[in-house]
Every structure is written in structure tokens, then in C-alpha cells.
């Protein structure tokens, strides 16, 4: 009965047009109704806005090595996240660790800096690829770089590189969210939400490396990059609940990766990036409209030996960046300061090695009135340094 009726209704172009317009309008209305409201234009949030009013300088407060899980020889690619003021921990560090990079036993490790004892807690593994695969419904060959973020509800979100077939060229970014009731490391656990949909080509090859930029609406912008021969940076916007809202390509250049975001103002953002070219420089791009569009800038004068960099804009006129300053190696790791992301002045030489020494993949964070820096030390451990703001210091 239905088929003859449908045939009659759709017999002529005019009837199909009328029926189609009605169904089409209904479908579009349903699409709009089932979507979240479009958020307001993004505005970044300063970690420490009052710093702009307080002349002074950073002074080294403490340093050392973050504890490693037992019997784990290799570590790399740390990320730092600030915990809530009411939390027992000031900072949580995550990194990947195992026998070596890309080994099948690599897991995501974590440690927390306890406010009371002023010490890092013993490290433990919090994410492994078998649990991730079981929750995703499909396999994960290897785990890599983690990046952490705490949402306004106090839940820790982790974004972790997870590979399919083909190594890092087949990488995806998996989004996990804290599932334990407490952020205390002893019981910290995560549930997998999804592999972020970022690419039509079987959802490869996107990776994450550097910290997100916090927004005033409670959301954040996560810098990521595509890597399959060519390399280009992309910004992902998330709302306060951790739902992905959209993506924007940040540069037309095809040799740059691992962007780090620094805010110059609420809507003026800068992205500094690693350069894969020989004799590379730290490359730059900027957005003047809160991340809706980006434009390439001239390279910085600073050399980049195809190495990861990490930066943060803490207050108006105060940006810090950790990077390998030697043009051909990762022996030297510096911390520099700038007011405008163009002219950088050395604050402290974090590490100065020789020969095959490697100090690399830094992370920077402002928390508890301090600038925290962590970095890979010889691919065997994660080193850290804490700098406290000293008012009126020269």
C-alpha cells in the first residue's frame, strides 16, 4: 500500500520538489536542533593576570627528576597540568614510558607534586593500550605523547597519541577523561571517550604534543598537527565539558609541526612551531580573532634543530618559552622571556650538555605562583625545574 502511494506522490518533478522541500526543511531544522548552540567567540584566559602589575623576575626554587615507575628504563614527552587550589597536588605530570619509544609495553605514567610535602609522589602507570583498545572497540598498536587539561568541574582530560597500522604516520589522538571520583594519583583512572575525528583518510595522521590554551568560557583550544610526509598545525576547540566543537588549520606551510600556543591578549594568539627544515628556525603564526583564522608570520631569529618547543603567556607582557637553542643538537635547553613573542631574552640556561646528550620535549606551566618546566633527560627520565616570581628582583 505504501509503495503505490509513494510512487504516486513522487511521479512528477513538481510533486518531488514540494515533497523534497518539506522533508529538506524538516531535516535541516532537526540538524540545527540536535546540535549544541554555537559558542561565543573564543577569548583566552590569563593564568596570572596580576603579574603584569608586579615588577620582578623569576628565581630558581627547586629542581630534580620526577620519579619513574619501577623497572622502566625510558621516558619521553612530558606534559604538566595545574590542579585546583583545593587539591592536595599542585601539579600533575604525565609522560610516556616503557622499554623505549614505540615499544609495545609503552604506557602513560603520572606523578603529582604534593603541596604539603613539596615532593613528587611515586609514579604509576595510568593508561595502557590494551584498556584503550578495549574501550574504543578497535586495536591500538602503540601509545605516545600525552597532553593533559583540567575542566571547570575538576576532571582531568588526557589526549594521547595512539597509532594504528604504520607507526606515527598512522597516529590518531585518543581523548580520555578521568573516571575516578578523586584526582589523587593512587586511585586515578580514565575512561576512553573517542578517537578524535580529524581526517578523512582513515582518521590518520594527527598527533598532539603541547598544552592547550585555556578559554574564559571554561573550554580550551588544543594545538595538534598533521604528519604524513607533509606537516601542518591545526587548532581544535573544546567546550567546558570537553566536547570537541571544531577545527581550524593554522598555517599554509607544510614543514612545521607541534605548535605551542601563547596569548598576547584575549583574542590575539600566537603559535610557535617546530621546523623540520635543515637550518630551521622557530616558525610563527598568529590569530587576531580568537582562533577563527590564522596567518603566517616571519620566522623568529631563534634556531630550531627540528625539536619540540613549549611556551606560555602568563600575563600581559610576560611570555616564557623553553626550547633547544643550539642549531644542530638537543644538548642545550634554554628558558627565555618575551613581552611580544618576537624579541626573546634568555632567562636561564636549563641544561647544557655535550656529545650525545639530549634534553628535549619541554613542557611549561604556570601554577601556584610559579613557572614549572619539565623536559626529557637523555630519554631516560623526566627532569623538572620550578621558578618562583620574585617581586622587585632585577
Amino acid at each position, binding site marked *: 500500500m505504501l509503495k503505490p502511494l*509513494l*510512487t504516486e506522490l*513522487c511521479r*512528477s518533478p513538481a510533486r518531488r520538489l514540494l515533497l523534497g522541500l518539506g522533508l529538506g526543511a524538516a531535516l535541516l531544522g532537526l540538524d540545527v536542533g540536535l546540535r549544541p548552540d554555537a559558542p561565543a567567540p573564543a577569548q583566552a584566559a590569563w593564568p596570572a593576570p596580576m603579574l603584569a602589575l608586579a615588577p620582578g623576575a623569576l628565581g630558581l626554587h627547586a629542581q630534580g627528576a620526577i620519579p619513574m615507575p619501577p623497572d622502566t628504563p625510558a621516558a619521553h614527552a612530558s606534559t604538566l597540568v595545574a590542579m585546583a587550589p583545593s587539591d592536595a597536588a599542585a601539579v600533575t605530570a604525565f609522560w610516556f614510558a616503557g622499554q623505549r619509544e614505540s615499544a609495545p609495553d609503552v604506557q602513560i605514567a603520572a606523578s603529582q607534586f604534593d603541596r604539603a610535602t613539596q615532593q613528587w609522589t611515586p609514579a604509576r602507570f595510568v593508561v595502557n593500550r590494551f584498556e584503550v583498545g578495549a574501550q574504543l572497540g578497535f586495536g591500538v598498536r602503540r601509545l605516545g605523547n600525552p597532553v593533559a587539561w583540567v575542566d571547570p568541574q575538576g576532571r582531568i582530560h588526557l589526549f594521547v597519541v595512539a597509532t594504528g597500522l604504520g607507526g606515527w604516520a598512522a597516529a590518531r589522538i585518543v581523548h580520555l577523561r578521568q573516571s575516578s571520583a578523586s584526582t589523587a594519583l593512587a586511585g586515578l583512572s580514565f575512561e*576512553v571517550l573517542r578517537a578524535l*575525528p580529524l581526517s578523512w583518510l582513515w582518521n590518520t595522521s594527527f598527533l598532539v604534543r603541547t598544552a592547550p590554551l585555556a578559554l574564559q568560557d571554561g573550554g580550551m583550544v588544543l594545538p595538534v598537527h598533521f604528519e604524513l610526509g607533509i606537516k601542518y598545525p591545526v587548532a581544535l576547540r573544546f567546550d567546558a565539558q570537553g566536547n570537541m*566543537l571544531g577545527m*581550524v588549520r593554522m598555517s599554509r606551510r607544510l614543514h612545521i609541526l607541534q605548535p605551542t600556543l601563547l596569548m598576547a591578549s584575549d583574542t590575539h594568539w600566537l603559535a610557535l612551531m617546530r621546523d623540520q627544515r635543515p637550518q630551521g628556525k622557530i616558525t610563527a603564526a598568529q590569530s587576531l580573532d580568537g582562533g577563527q*583564522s590564522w596567518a603566517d608570520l616571519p620566522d623568529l631569529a631563534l634556531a630550531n634543530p627540528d625539536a619540540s618547543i613549549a611556551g606560555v603567556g602568563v600575563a600581559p607582557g610576560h611570555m616564557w618559552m623553553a626550547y633547544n637553542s643550539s642549531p644542530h643538537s638537543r644538548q642545550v635547553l634554554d628558558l627565555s622571556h618575551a613581552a611580544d613573542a618576537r624579541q626573546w631574552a634568555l632567562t636561564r640556561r636549563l641544561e647544557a650538555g655535550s656529545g650525545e646528550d639530549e634534553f628535549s620535549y619541554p613542557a611549561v606551566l604556570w601554577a601556584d605562583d610559579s613557572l614549572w618546566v619539565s623536559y626529557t633527560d637523555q630519554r631516560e627520565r623526566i627532569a623538572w625545574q620550578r621558578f618562583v616570581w620574585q617581586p622587585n628582583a632585577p
Partner: protein
Amino acid sequence: MTDYLNFLLHTNAASLPSPASGYGYLHGAWAVVMAAAVAWLAQGVSVRVRMGLAGAVAVLNMLPGPVAPAYWLGLAFQAPSLLSAGLALAYLVAVWRGPALGPWRGALAGTRWSVLGGVGVALGWVLLLDTLAWWPVSVYAWGFGTSAVAVVLVVALLAWVVSAGREPACGPWAGVLGVLALFVLTRWPNGNVWDALLDPWLWAGLQGVGAFRALRWVWRRGSAATHA
């Protein structure tokens, strides 16, 4: 102009399926696609046996963990598109209904499928080159927004309207509209309309079919000219 296009096409209201829904779709879609593949490979045996084998493969894909082929297919290729799953389901129905689907089989060789296939091939090239950053704007990012759904809706509706009198109401363009409606309701597979309409394997298949038909046409023309 690029900034204007970026602003027009930029989307920041993506709607992704829930983790449970995404998990269910991945296993369900691979179950249907693999069942159709097995049914196609088993041509020549009885319908009952073909459907039995297809059913067994479908059940296997719904199991959790590494025992399911979907676990490994998902590792490599994520989830099939809604259109791929729909075509696979339609094929299984055709196998089950047997000779009654003769006219349906004939329709597959018709012009309307060639037009739809051509559109699919073109879209795939646009998306592949977009992945390689050829275009000034990100086409894939646009697929998270309502404007992309609207464009697909207009194109499919126009093609469906224009084809009145030459194809049945439930022809290929109506199928595209059905996929779009299912996407709006479920956001399968991942909230991006391009992934709902086309996956790389379907795109490769369309090109293969297109190349085969082109070669066959050239061969037939050559044969006709020889015998003239």
C-alpha cells in the same frame, strides 16, 4: 578572499556521537560490510548457505575484543561510511530476495548510478587533497557543520527531483537522502558528514567500477567498429 571563506566555512558547533554509540556503530557497520563481502564471495552456493555464512561473520564482528575482525579493521580503517554500510545491507537484502531483485540488479548498471558514482569519485579527490592541505580552506572541518549538511541536501534533492519519471522514488539519490537523515539522527560514524557519505575504500571501489566500465565501453566500441 581566503579569510572570508574561512569565516564562512568555519564551524564550531560539531555534534559527535556518544562513545557507546560510536562503539556500537563501528562493530555494527563492519558486521554488515563483512557479511556482504562474504555473501559476494560465496556466489554459486545456495542462498541459504550464503546467508548463513554472512550471518556467522556478522555475529563474529559484534563480539568484543581482538576475536572480532572489526577490532582489527577499526585499527586500520576506523569505521565504514554510512553509505558503505547501507549499500552492503542493500546487497544482503538483494541476495536474500533472490530473483525478485532482477530489476534492481539491472539498475546498478544504469546511468543514474554512474552519475552518483562520479560525484563520489570527485568528492573523494577533494577530500584526499584537502587532507594534503591543497585547498585554501579546510573542507573536512566544514563537514562538522550544518552548512555542509545543507549543501549535500540541496544537491541530492535537486538530483532526485530532476530524475522524476526516469527513476523510481527509491533510487540512488533517495538513498543518499536516507543516509543524510540517518546521519542527522545518529551522527554516525563520527559527527562529520563527509565520513558518513564516503570512506576511502568506497571511493577506491567507485573508481575501480568506473575504470572497468570505461574500458568495457572502449572495447565494445572498438569491436563494433571492427565488425562494421
